[in-house]
């Protein structure tokens, strides 16, 4: 695919276009957060680009980049319904900063922005209805941030005390499926919290088993340990 779209965007944006990539045919344009709305407006209104179809808006968290560099990537996926061309607009946003909303350009951005707010804690200025959408309002934290432990549940109803009724579960707390039935009360207190693997790497832990460690003869033993330490 030619880079016609990116060239067109470069002429429109000039210096504001920080970087373009074309990895595996996905055309990506990087802009600063301040130019986010302006760049999106070009994508929408320019008659050559005419990205009339909203596709997606999401974010990626890179906690290891902080604090020197902005922590989040926010990405906008749009498509031209006539020429079937697609373009991805990207910006890098620091924690705590806000971004201009795109709901005035594509109405479809509304729920996507609410979801990004819910999952990453990035709020969008000018959004008409900035509420949590997938989680409940009592929820603390933003789960798709890498530093949110995956199993830190925040129950809305107190878990039932199994002693008060004759209908006991037929298996003990630790039995059943061990994958899901670890000691949830300890986990709720954060004593047995799992951390996302990428954070573990940042903290100096092994991401996974490296090939040097696999000794052909003793293969199973270190593997079990490594798997246990990873999770």
């Amino acid at each position, binding site marked *: 695919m030619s880079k016609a779209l990116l060239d067109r965007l470069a002429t429109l944006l000039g210096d504001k276009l920080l970087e373009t990539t074309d990895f595996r045919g996905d055309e990506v344009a990087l802009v600063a957060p301040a130019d986010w709305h302006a760049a999106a407006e070009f994508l929408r209104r320019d008659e050559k680009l005419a990205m009339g179809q909203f596709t997606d808006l999401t974010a990626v968290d890179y906690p290891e980049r902080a604090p020197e560099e902005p922590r989040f990537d926010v990405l906008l996926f749009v498509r031209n319904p006539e020429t079937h061309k697609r373009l991805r607009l990207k910006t890098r946003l620091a924690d705590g900063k806000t971004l201009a909303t795109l709901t005035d350009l594509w109405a479809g951005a509304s729920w996507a922005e609410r979801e990004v707010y819910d999952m990453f804690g990035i709020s969008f200025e000018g959004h008409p209805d900035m509420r949590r959408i997938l989680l409940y309002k009592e929820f603390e934290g933003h789960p798709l941030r890498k530093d949110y432990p995956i199993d830190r*549940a*925040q129950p*809305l109803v107190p878990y*039932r005390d199994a002693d008060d009724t*004759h*209908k*006991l*579960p*037929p*298996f003990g707390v630790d039995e059943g499926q061990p994958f899901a039935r670890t000691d949830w009360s300890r986990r709720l207190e954060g004593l047995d919290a799992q951390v996302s693997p990428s954070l573990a790497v940042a903290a100096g832990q092994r991401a996974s088993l490296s090939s040097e460690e696999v000794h052909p003869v003793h293969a199973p033993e270190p593997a079990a340990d490594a798997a246990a330490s990873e999770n």
Partner: protein
Amino acid sequence: MGEMTFGGAGEDANFFTTKFDALLGWARKYSLFQYPFVTACCGMEFMAVASPRYDMARFGAEAPRFSPRQADVLWVVGTVSQRQGPVLKRIYEQMTEPKWVIAFGTCASCGGFYDNYTTIPGIDKVVPVDIYIPGCPPRPEAVLDGLMLLMDKIQNGNKDPLVVPPRELPKLAQLRAKKDAKP
């Protein structure tokens, strides 16, 4: 097991209470109005259980009442998230006695592989459960097993929670039958 019997022998002091309980159990087990609390994937298999091939209606458990007041058995079909928890609890409280709960599928039984911040690890954390049907999703045969297990439970007045046992391998069942037949 579990049929209403008339004209049998064995009168004892509590003849009428026993008979009455038997009658009530019989009526209840063949008239299970269900409240399907369908949230997720298992709902597809739940539809299949109601479909012509498996036909849950054969057991008299066909009438879905979407008002919890009229339902006897609450089918929790699918994953229950933390956000859904209060809703489930409320529905259970709204049901009128006697009531039973079936945890349909692994997610409802113990959370399944959604072992994370948003999923309740088994609905027994919120409501008491009578029958656990394992499987992700369970096959309709397992669901029918679970339903029959519940019917037995109702007839016998058994209050303990039960798990649908895995089906025996046909080969294993044959071998066992052979061994039993020998002596």
